[in-house]
């Protein structure tokens, strides 16, 4: 079968495709709300039928064939689940080591993969009356700490990729010093990939700073760096990411999120 690449897709669709492809089959994936749920469903429908989703509401290993869940606690997360309790059980599984990947997002990211989803403004001075108040950690900070590895999904803009976060909600490699996570008492290995509207990024083994792995179709090393508020490590082997296939885009649009809840952000502002 020859692959046909899609000629028309949005940045969000590209993110979903890249996220899905990053997931290995048969792994346990703790799914944050929104795009991660779409990406996991796409992976299950393509190369990863054995992926086991975990939802913080409490459902573990359900089939996602009842339609895209609008909430990680919603009734579409439970169909033929293999365990179904509540938040404590889901997070304890994670802390214990059952979750291979956590799949999260944030409003800001720094060079070490730390994320902010709490507030914009001066912290701690304006913590009680921030410039912008965001929804808060939810389970993201726990996933970032206790899933064995985390995959981060971000819109790629300079104001979101910053040298210093306004507030550190979800730990990445903290200050990047050797074994910073272990020294802080965190059990998971940390961020594995950052998937954005422009690139696939990873982290340097030694410095733990963000490095470019691949540019998405239409982007260049320069355009990615330009959209990033700090200096990226650019290795020699940066490659161009394979564009979405027609089939991947069809699955997203027709099967997974036909009403565009998360991919088109119809309701979200």
């Amino acid at each position, binding site marked *: 079968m020859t692959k046909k690449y899609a000629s028309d897709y949005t940045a969000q669709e590209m993110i979903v495709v890249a996220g899905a492809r990053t997931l290995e089959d048969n792994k346990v994936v703790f799914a944050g709300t*929104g795009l991660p749920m779409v990406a996991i469903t796409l992976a299950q429908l393509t190369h990863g039928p054995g992926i086991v989703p975990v*939802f913080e509401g409490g459902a573990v290993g359900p089939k996602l064939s009842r339609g895209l869940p609008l909430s990680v606690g919603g009734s579409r997360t439970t169909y033929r689940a293999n365990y179904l309790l509540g938040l*404590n059980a889901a997070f304890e599984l994670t802390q214990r080591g059952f979750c291979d990947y956590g799949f999260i997002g944030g409003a800001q990211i720094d060079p070490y993969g730390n994320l902010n989803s709490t507030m914009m403004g001066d912290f701690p001075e304006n913590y*009680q009356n921030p410039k912008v108040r965001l929804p808060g*950690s939810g*389970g993201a900070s*726990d996933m970032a700490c206790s899933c064995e590895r985390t995959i981060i999904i971000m819109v790629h803009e300079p104001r979101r990729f910053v040298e210093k976060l306004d507030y550190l909600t979800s730990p990445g490699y903290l200050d990047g010093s050797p074994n910073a996570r272990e020294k802080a008492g*965190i*059990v998971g290995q940390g961020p594995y990939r950052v998937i954005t509207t422009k690139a696939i990024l990873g982290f340097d083994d030694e410095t733990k700073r963000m490095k470019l792995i691949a540019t998405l179709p239409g982007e260049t090393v320069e355009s990615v760096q330009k959209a990033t508020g700090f200096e990226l490590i650019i290795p020699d082997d940066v490659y161009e990411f394979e564009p979405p296939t027609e089939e991947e885009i069809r699955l997203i649009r027709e099967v997974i999120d036909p009403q565009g809840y998360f991919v088109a952000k119809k309701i979200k502002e």
Partner: protein
Amino acid sequence: MYWTGLSPDEARKHLANKDKSKRDKRMSLKEAVQKYVKDGDNIGVGGFVDCRQPMAIIHEIIRQGRKDLTLTFPSEGLSVEYLAGAMALDENHLNIKRLELAYWAHEAFGISPLFRYLAENGKIEIEDWSNANMSARLKAGAMGIPFIPYRSPMGSDLVKTNRSKVIDCPFTGKPVLLLPAAHPNVAIIHVQEADMYGNCRIQGPTFVCPETSMASAYTIVTCDRLIEHEEMTRYPNRISIPYFSVDAVVEVPFGAYPGNTHGIHYFDEKHIVEFRTACDKLRKGDSGPLKEYYDNYIYGVEDFGEFISKIPYKQLQHIQKIESGIRLEAGYTAL
């Protein structure tokens, strides 16, 4: 260290002195809220984001008005948005003093306009935690231990402002986070099925509802269906909250509307958007639509049933029809 709600010792003493007999706890929601929700209370809010939200209880609290509330929950959406709306319209009738939370927004239905409004205007005291931490704090409360260790999220800014403490584990020598137990004054919880004594059978995810009930001094439960005690105790392994943890039981069909109640009805997206849009307008300076919403749907009615009767029947039918698993046999979750 200060405690909001009850301290561990107060919580123990309160419960030890409580009547745990099996007795008929049915009453009207009006009576339940009068009896168990006081000014200054710390309220443990059941459900998760927009799922199984204790909406009927929230409406009644709004109608009656309460001051200086502390709200304790991991992740909520509609329930707290409605309380915030009442506060935004008239702080003298109802006000939230403090939040202990991990997340307040609506997932697919967007962020919370009124959380932004209250926070950005410095109108509430906020203590940020993670979902796991808030869940574990309520679990510690339910277990009767004064704190519980956790391994996340050290290294975050959350632990800098909340009441957790990082210590070196006395067994491993490695850093571990200690979370103080949470003991709300009252838990408000909606479930699919309960019996007249208060036993609850939750379908689908339990969220943190059992823990919240068992951690709190009092619990008000609404249920879509009141079922016979004999039916409930046919399946003891499926009882999610035991009767002696519950103080008031009220049968309120659609009690979590317009949110999703697993196995009963799906989200009413139309109504959620209607409400959320009014909230958003308030944040941007126009309180008119929200005032109209409250006058029409909350202050203008006697009880939650009257509110539901204002929703077109077809809309209610629709959200029942699109719910994945409509069967509520014991053990069934989704069919």
